[in-house]
């Protein structure tokens, strides 16, 4: 299956609770199949002090879109609606798991 890489980024954020979370997101455009996304993706958010504390979304075959929390290797499927819905759902799970990510941190060392 032909896949075109559209995005590959990783960023670090602070949480309101004072933790540090790394988020790595990649996105490939693939040939669309019925009921399946036209993208392949792997999105992970993890605690940098305990990487097994994590939210992992991916969509490798044959499972299709699904997510894992922490050490759950089975994963839970979710219905693909759109890329915007998938992003919104990932963001919701990250918030549930780690608390709110701080948009503009005030960590005493930030340059303005």
């Amino acid at each position, binding site marked *: 299956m032909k896949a075109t890489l559209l995005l590959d980024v*990783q960023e670090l954020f602070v949480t309101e609770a004072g933790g540090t979370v790394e988020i790595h997101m990649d996105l490939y455009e693939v040939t669309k199949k019925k009921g399946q996304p036209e993208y392949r993706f792997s999105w992970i958010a993890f605690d940098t002090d305990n990487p097994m504390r994590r939210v992992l979304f991916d969509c490798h075959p044959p499972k299709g879109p699904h997510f894992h929390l922490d050490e759950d290797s089975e994963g839970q499927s979710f219905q693909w609606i759109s890329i915007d819905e998938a992003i919104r759902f990932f963001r919701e799970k990250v918030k549930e798991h780690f608390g709110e990510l701080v948009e503009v941190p005030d960590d005493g060392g930030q340059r303005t």
Partner: protein
Amino acid sequence: MKTFTFRYDPKATPHALFARVAKAAKARTADVHKDETSSNSIHAILSAMTEVRLQVFYAIADHHPVSMYQLAQHLKRDQANVLRDVKALEAMKLVKLVSEMDGDRERLRPTANYDRIVFDFGAARTGRAKRTVGSN
């Protein structure tokens, strides 16, 4: 030389990250930044890549230990604590743990994915960059 960069970027907010994913999907334009992690928090960068983890990374890259035991011996640290740091480095894609058989025992050999780690906190606004032509 393969370099990994921790980059301070005040514009790298959570909201901006998720917007970038949506934009890449819709515009179908590549937004690829391999070999670097950005953050809008200096604290987050230094919390993720601590002094101890830098020591662990360079011990792996410089000394090529064949096992976690050998790495811990080199660092004169407890193996379980070193493994915790290696797992964090592995999650950040800076190292990998290769499973190998040593006789009938399995061992984990840590290997570095990069030769160098760089911290980029951006240029200061000193104005020097504008004075490069015809001035000292």
